[in-house]
């Protein structure tokens, strides 16, 4: 797609407020009246196509929310609401602000609104109630569970009842088996549309891998003998497991034998009818910006390698048929949370594909 609106951001105001939704709404109205009448920006447009709610329990979540709101509204104009259950303050506190993006053509701005609600973690119920009063009616509600996906807890507070989509990041969890199981159960029980950022980060990988089997090459899928995922973390990251799980589920492979070494290296033998396929997940260094460093798919005829070169924001595809290897490079920078959420909001969710991938990932974990 073409470039986004310019990143030039002006914050119009940041004002502490009582935690009182009607007062907050009135203050927003005042801000927009001031903005249009002050000559600051005669052509600012308040746009809201979404309620974007972030909930977190750590002080640093405020910065993560801030970082996201510097990116997200330029693509999905929204009212952003942060509910932060952190700190020691006795009373709930609120502040509001607004920021604008200058559009590429002319002097027009598009502006979004932000509300921050903070209180002690044990006052999450009150935070949720205030938050519900601040949702813009008739607009979709997206909730981002920034920390541990305490789905049950937030459902209990009615927050997820109103959510159209819930974001979380399974990559932030150590115990992947437990995380996947909990989330799948919650999705079924509460009929939630769950969007895993770890899954979202796999989109470029999935697209490039799928491309290698388009058209006449589709026959190669039946000749796959090995799938090898190298991950760049000390512990097995969710992304690597989901990528392997996705391939296993889409190829309809059944698990026959599994060797898991302390959750860090996996070697599995799977079958598609009578054909054996080995799947290995192997640590290959650590501290790279992206969790997966390389994926190799071996078939009887070709070895396909897809690798992320984070330093130069590219991905490389290498195909080794009989002759000279064929290389391809595409743009693909490692994405931060804001970029992944922004992109995932553009895309249709694929809950069944994700659920299948998670199911196969759980199988690869031996659960």
């Amino acid at each position, binding site marked *: 797609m073409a470039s*986004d609106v310019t990143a030039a951001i002006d914050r119009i105001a940041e004002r502490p407020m009582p935690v009182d939704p009607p007062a907050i709404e009135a203050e927003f109205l005042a801000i927009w009246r001031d903005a249009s009448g002050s000559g600051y920006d005669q052509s600012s*447009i308040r746009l809201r196509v979404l309620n974007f709610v972030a909930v977190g329990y750590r002080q640093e979540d405020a910065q993560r929310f801030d970082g996201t709101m510097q990116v997200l509204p330029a693509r999905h104009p929204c009212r952003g609401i942060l509910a932060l259950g952190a700190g020691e303050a006795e009373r709930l506190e609120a502040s509001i602000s607004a920021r604008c993006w200058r559009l590429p053509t002319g002097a027009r701005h598009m502006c979004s609104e932000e509300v921050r609600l903070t209180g002690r973690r044990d006052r999450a119920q009150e935070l949720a109630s205030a938050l519900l009063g601040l949702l813009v009616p008739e607009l979709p509600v997206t909730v981002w569970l920034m920390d541990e996906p305490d789905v049950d807890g937030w459902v209990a507070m009615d927050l997820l009842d109103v959510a159209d989509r819930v974001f979380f990041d399974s990559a932030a969890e150590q115990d992947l088996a437990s995380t996947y199981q909990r989330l799948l159960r919650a999705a079924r029980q509460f009929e939630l549309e769950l969007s895993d950022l770890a899954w979202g980060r796999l989109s470029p990988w999935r697209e490039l891998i799928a*491309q290698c089997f*388009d058209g006449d090459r589709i026959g190669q*899928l039946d000749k796959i003998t090995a799938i090898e995922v190298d991950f760049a973390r000390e512990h097995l990251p969710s992304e690597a497991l989901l990528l392997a799980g996705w391939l296993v589920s889409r190829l309809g492979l059944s698990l026959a034998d599994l060797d898991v070494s302390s959750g860090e290296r996996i070697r599995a033998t799977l079958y598609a009818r009578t054909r054996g396929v080995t799947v290995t997940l192997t640590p290959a260094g650590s501290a790279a910006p992206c969790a997966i460093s390389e994926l190799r798919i071996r078939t009887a005829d070709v070895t396909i390698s897809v690798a992320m070169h984070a330093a130069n924001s590219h991905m490389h595809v290498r195909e080794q048929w009989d002759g000279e290897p*064929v*290389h391809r*490079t595409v743009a693909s920078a490692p994405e931060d949370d804001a970029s992944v959420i922004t992109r995932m909001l553009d895309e249709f969710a694929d809950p069944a594909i994700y659920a299948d991938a998670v199911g196969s990932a759980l199988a690869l974990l031996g659960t």
Partner: protein
Amino acid sequence: MTISATPVNPLRAGLRIPRTPEPCALVVFGATGDLTARKLMPALYNLARERLLPAGFSVVGFARRPWTDADFRAAMREAIEKFSREPLQSDIWDTFARSLHYVSGTFGDIDGYERLGERLLAEDSAHGSAGNRVFYLATPPGAYAEIAHHLGEANLSRSPSGGWTRLVVEKPFGSDLESARKLDQSLGLVFRERQIFRIDHYLGKETVQNIMVFRFGNGIFEPIWNRRYVDNVQVSVAETVGLEGRGGYYDQSGALRDMVQNHLLQVLALVAMEPVATLTGEGVRDEKAKVLRAVKPIEDVDRLTVRAQYTAGAINGLRVPGYRDEPDVGDRSLTETYVALKLGIENWRWADVPFYLRVGKRLPKRATEVAITFRSAPLQLFREMRADNPTPNLLVLRIQPDEGISLRFGAKVPGTRMDVRPVNMDFRYGTSFGIEPPEAYERLLLDAMIGDSTLFTRWDSVEAAWEVLTPVLGAWAAGASPLHYYEAGTWGPDEARSLVERDGREWHRM
């Protein structure tokens, strides 16, 4: 949208792009030309960088200049650096450039086509493109028939290995009904209709595509999209530019052939067509063709058309020459740079609703819009109350620039009196989605490679469009309708205003 029948790749399920081109080779005839440099190559580069090209993909440029692969790559790199919407990144360019090749030959030289065939077989082997080929004619239209003939002669119109071949041609498709039919017959000797993709880059524009979404994806508009509620429809294309080095071509063509026969009538067809049962390429193209065939024949050319030519004037504060002073234009040229038409569509939906079309060069601003004016409310309650009534509701589909849609309606002015004032409700792509739409050529090239013909013009539409304009071309050639003049920087001749004013209407202000 239609997709060529191929086995379903299970890895595609749930992906952002559920369809992708099969591995293929794109052959560009006229590879050293302006269109290749300005549009095609930047579009291909951006498709490559966004992972939208297939894994086995190559481009083979074909032109007269005695270039090598290296020369072609160097020229295309320069073109991308100059014209791409995204800056060139060396790493991506390096692998993209490896897929670029060049074959030197003239369009009439059969040996060149044989060398091209050999090159394509080598590409099939190196990239696994399986004999799938797109031949893109980025050449003067006069070369289309010859190239198609030689492609057939060299057995390139059929894939050697069970793959597919497609031919993409740019407008104009013929210069009148007879020449268009002749060209169609020439291409038809070598390619079947389903292999021919007639590109009209207007149809790749986001707002043009959005016309269908707007009409058929919303429940509130289609019930009023007919003669009972619509007073008139205006399709306007205003350009500030003059000829931009195209004097030789334009002076032979004129605005009617260059713009009305393709862009304006295609947009009219999208606005006026019946709903499709399914969103398939053939379904959409069937309905568009039906509308064009229902256009009432223009019998009184003098009364229903206006043609004009610009004289010297000023645009955006700069003096500009008159048309006849442009390079490659004859001193006595009678070529029209402005056209206004009144058309009618003879079907149940549109009977008696006038469709006004206008297009012109050197007008005060650049804009392309479809304006649908609705009938006024049956009872003018607020006529006596300082209202601006009768100001009818107006729906404007802005195609360029600033793509979007606006709806005008009356609203009460705050206060103790019942004053009514027209206000606009605006939707803009740039603000509601926060991004600019991709270049039309990116979408169209991708669709051609995928085999989705929805946004391409089928022969029956082309033929119907020429049939609509044939009486006009004939009358104008016979001098039946005078050529008027307008000063550059104005909205066209007075006669164009009269065309709508005598119906008690006025042109929508752009």
